[in-house]
Structures are given as C-alpha cells and as structure tokens.
C-alpha cells in the first residue's frame, strides 16, 4: 500500500526525471545512507570491516567503473585487474614521492593516471568490437602485470618485489597502514563510494550517458544522429578506468596494505569484477552494488555456514564454495541474464500493483 506513485504528482521535468520517482524509494534510500554513515561506523569491528564491508565497498567502486564501460557503453573489458594495478602502483609511487600530500589526493590522482592508461588501451576499441576487443584488453591485463613485476622502479627497488603502504592520516586519524581503526577504513571507502556512485548516476542520466548507451545499442545509428564514436568510447574508457584506478588504489592502500601484483591484480580479478556486473545487472548502478555484495558476501556466508555451523573441513568447504558460486553464476546467466537489478525491478513492479496480480 505504501509503494505507490499515486498522489505523488510531478509538476516539473526535474522531479519527473529524478532517480527515485516513488516516495517510498526515496525514504528507503535515505534510510540506507543514514545507517551506512550514522550507525555502522560505530558498531563495526575488525572482522566485519576486513572480511565484508571494506572489500564490498571497494569492489562496488570497481564494478561501477566496469559497468560504465561494459554495461553502459557496451565495450567488453578483461583488463580490470591490470587497471586496478595501475591505480595501486600510481598511488604507491605518489605516496612515497610526496609524503606530505593528503592520501585522498593521491587516491584521486591514481584514478587520473589510470584514466590516461585506460584511454591508451581503449584506442583499439575504435576498430574492433566484442570478443576481439575483450582479447585486446586481455593484452592490457597481462602487459600491465608484467610491467609492474619487471620494472623495479615501480616498487621502489624493494627486495621482495612487493609494495607496502606507508601510514597516512586524514584529520589525525590513520586511514592506511597497520594502525588503522576499522571504522576509519570503512568510512574512507564509504565516502569515496558514495561520491563516485552519485557522479556515476549523474553521468549516466544525462547527455554523456545517452551517448554511451547509443553507442552500446547501435553504434551506426548513434553516429548518424551526431555522436562522435571516438570521443564517446574514449570518454567511457577514461571514466571507467578512473573508477577502477581508485578501486585499485584503495584495494592496495586500505584493504591489503601490501601487494604482490600478480597475486592481487591478476586475471582473476578481472573476471571477478566482470561476474559482479553480469550477476548484478549490466547498465545499472544498483546492479553494481548488488553484484559486488553477492560475490563478496556469498563466500563469507558459505564459509560461516559450512565451516562454522556444519563443522566441515576448511579445504572441503573452500571447494564446495567455488562450486556453489560457479553454479549460481551459471544459473543467473540462464534464468536472468539481466541480473539482480532486473529481479529487483520486477519485484518493484509487482509490489506497485500488490495485492492485484495485474
């Protein structure tokens, strides 16, 4: 009964095109934001931050980034891991070269550096599409990981070949390094995610987003109505890589602390983020959140149930977990190719009509 547009009259085009046209959705949105900012930081502990919250927030940023490129602009990329590595190494180099500058600026600049690299590797997209483009981005993935392994300058000639984050503070509170409190990690990532998600929504609802979607749905028609494919595709690569770069920087600086590039940013990472947006829903900001939540939370949940509740051996549980997650991905692809976002949308449509079936 609550979930109705009835009585909520739109009197301007601005209010007609708002993100949540139904009043109940607006309340729900603000409630989620209020809990995320006002409640969780006070109750979060190290386990929840490291196992659930922080990886979820970081993967959500990466998923939004890849969704802009693949979901909105239709350019398939398998280079996400490589671009995350660019973000991480750019952040590391900046942090060690300019220790007096705020880490927040370093993270944003790392995104900027990644955007440039993304544009460079996006250039082939002007000539090739689909699977062939995916293979070209795969080259980016392997090349970038090789580069960061091979050139000692990137890891400051450290003996282990790893990069380790120095401690940095914002307003006197450590946000990177070993002494970071759980809530600071959480809040740092949350603020970035909140702003980036809002920006992504703004970009995709306006003329930039329409250009991307026009290229995605029919590139020839898009060109005929005046969309320049060169600048449009490259802008998608730039924005997408900016997001993925920030996610990579946070993954290294806030989440892991120390990184060996092949392990943290290998091809697996590219696939994980791609699965997130496929399961969550291509071309949907909410889908990016849902997909990230699904792939971060499900393994934790399964592990807790199988090992904690049923008392299985850890290695057995780990293998069963892989099978279940894999099975669910296949099931999603078959039964709901548009992902969780589409399920959510259908549920909302049913709810609007409830208790009537039609």
């Amino acid at each position, binding site marked *: 009964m609550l979930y109705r547009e009835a009585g909520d009259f739109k009197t*301007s*085009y*601005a209010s007609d*095109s708002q993100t949540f046209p139904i009043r109940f959705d607006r309340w729900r949105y603000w409630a989620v934001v209020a809990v995320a900012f006002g409640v969780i930081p006070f109750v979060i502990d190290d386990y929840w931050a490291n196992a659930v919250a922080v990886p979820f927030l970081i993967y959500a940023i990466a998923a939004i980034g890849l969704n802009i490129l693949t979901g909105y602009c239709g350019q398939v990329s398998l280079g996400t891991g490589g671009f995350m590595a660019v973000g991480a190494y750019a952040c590391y180099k900046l942090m060690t070269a300019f220790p007096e500058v705020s880490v927040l600026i370093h993270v944003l600049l790392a995104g900027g550096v990644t955007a440039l690299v993304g544009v460079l590797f996006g250039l082939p997209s002007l000539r090739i599409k689909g699977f062939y483009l995916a293979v070209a981005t795969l080259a980016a993935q392997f090349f970038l990981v090789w580069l960061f392994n091979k050139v000692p300058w990137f890891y400051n000639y450290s003996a282990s070949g790893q990069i380790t984050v120095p401690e940095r503070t914002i307003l006197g509170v450590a946000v990177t390094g070993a002494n970071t409190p759980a809530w600071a990690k959480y809040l740092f990532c949350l603020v970035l995610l909140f702003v980036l998600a809002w*920006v992504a929504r*703004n*970009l995709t*609802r*306006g*003329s*930039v987003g*329409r*250009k991307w*979607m*026009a290229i*995605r*749905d*029919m590139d*020839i*028609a*898009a*060109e*005929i*109505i*005046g*969309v*320049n*494919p060169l600048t449009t595709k490259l*802008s998608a690569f730039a*924005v997408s890589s900016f997001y993925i770069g920030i996610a990579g920087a946070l993954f290294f600086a806030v989440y892991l602390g120390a990184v060996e590039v092949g392990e943290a940013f290998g091809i697996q990472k590219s696939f994980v983020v791609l699965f997130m947006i496929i399961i969550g829903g291509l*071309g949907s900001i909410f889908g990016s959140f849902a997909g990230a939540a699904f792939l971060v939370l499900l393994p934790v949940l399964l592990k807790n149930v199988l090992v904690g509740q049923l008392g299985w051996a850890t290695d057995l549980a780990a293998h069963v977990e892989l099978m279940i997650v894999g099975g669910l991905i296949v099931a999603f692809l078959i039964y709901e190719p548009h992902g969780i976002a589409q399920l959510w949308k259908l549920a909302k449509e049913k709810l609007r009509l409830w208790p009537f079936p039609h």
Partner: protein
Amino acid sequence: MNAETPVEAIPTADDRKIGPVLMEMKHITLRFGGVKAITDISFDIREGEIRSIIGPNGAGKSSMLNVISGFYVPQEGEVWFRGARRPQMKPYQVARQGIARTFQNIALFDGMSVLDNIMTGRLTLMKTGLAAQSLWWGKAQREETEHREKVEKIIDFLEIQAIRKTPVGRLPYGLKKRVELARALAAEPMLLLLDEPMAGMNVEEKEDMCRFILDVNDEFGTTICLIEHDMGVVMDLSDRVVVMDYGKKIGDGTPDEVRGNQAVIDAYLGVAHD
C-alpha cells in the same frame, strides 16, 4: 457574424514557400568494387519542399541517401549543401550540419526508453561538458530540462505521450517508426531524410505517417527527402520526384511529369523486347 469579420487564411499546401536550393548532388558516382551502385546522378533539393526518390528494388535509392548522410563516400561527384561544397565528412559531422534521418530497418536504441531515445536526437545540441554533468545540479540539470521541454513538444506533435517511458523494445512496429521520426525531428534538422517511412505499415498507420510528414513540412518548414515504394503516397506527398533505375536517373520533376515519363513507365512495367 457579419461579413466584415476578417477570416484568417488557412495555409494550404500551395502557399508553402519553396525556397532556394538547399542541397545539390552533382554527378555522383558510387562504386562498390566492380559494382556501380550510382552512376553520374545529379539533382537538387530545394528549401521547404518534399522531394522523393523512387525506383525499383536495387535502383540505388538507399545508397543515395547514404551518400547524403555521409555514410558512403562517392568516388566521383560533389555534394553541395547550403551553397558550399561539402568536404568529405564523417556521418556525425553531417548530422551536426543539420541533416537527420530515419532508417529502412528501424535503428532505435533498444535498451533505452522512448523518451531517452528521442532525447538522443538532441545530443548534437547539448553542450554541457563531462565535469558539469558529473555534478548534475545547476547547469546540466537546467540544460536537461530545457531540452526535455522541446522533446515533449515533439512527443505531443506525434501523439506518443502514453508510451513516453516505455522501453523501445516493447513497442509495436508502427510506433517504433514514429519514435524514430521523433528522434530525427528532435535534432531540429534543416533536411530530414526518410528511408521508407511507410514500409510494412497498414493503411491507417500509413495515413498517420503521411499526415505527420505533411505536418512536419508545414509547421516546422523542414525540407524532407524521402524514399518510398507506395506510389500513391509518393505522388500525393511530393513536390518533386527523382526516379532511379539501375543506379541511373531516368526521371525528375513534379509527380505529374514523372507519371507521364515513358522511361519511368518502362522501368516499372517492363518493356517488351522485340
């Protein structure tokens, strides 16, 4: 009502102003490898008129339209637009000059709503950059509202208010054609190219479409160049007709002139080989 009341004249088709030459094709030849799609064709399109290109299947009509919209580059010949020779251009640059078109096989963006599809027609007119867009509040939102108002006028004009927020993929064929016309109109083009706007429609849908084409020409003063197979429609709508056959021009003139042209009759009815 007394006799002195001034009666405002209702504009009729004959009062429409046909202006100077808007676009001129000069000796266009287009080859695909060894196949000559268009051979040495010249014709012009005047401002404010409805110009049709007709001809049997494979005559090169669509290729001609693709030359105009910059999709094909002719090997020989010149395209003149608004009194100047048009250099070789990409299709998106042609669109920015004020030439919009629809396609024979509908080319809408299936993943977007009707409203978003029509809004894409205004992309060439929207100027807000990436930075302002990412903040939304202020400039980007103002621009969006401004263009939304224009688009709503077109939605009213084409009577598709009810399907504004429907995803385009769900619409029936006739409505899709109408949405495609709306998208082309949203660009406020000087020259509108319609590639078989009535293909595959029933009589009512054809009548609706004819009415819209005439209204667009009348109310917005848009110059229209269309390809159509329905002779009744072509003869009724057009001011002038170009007839093509096997890539060559075989007739050019008013519908009546074309109707009486022996070469045209031969092309359509066939000639006895004796």
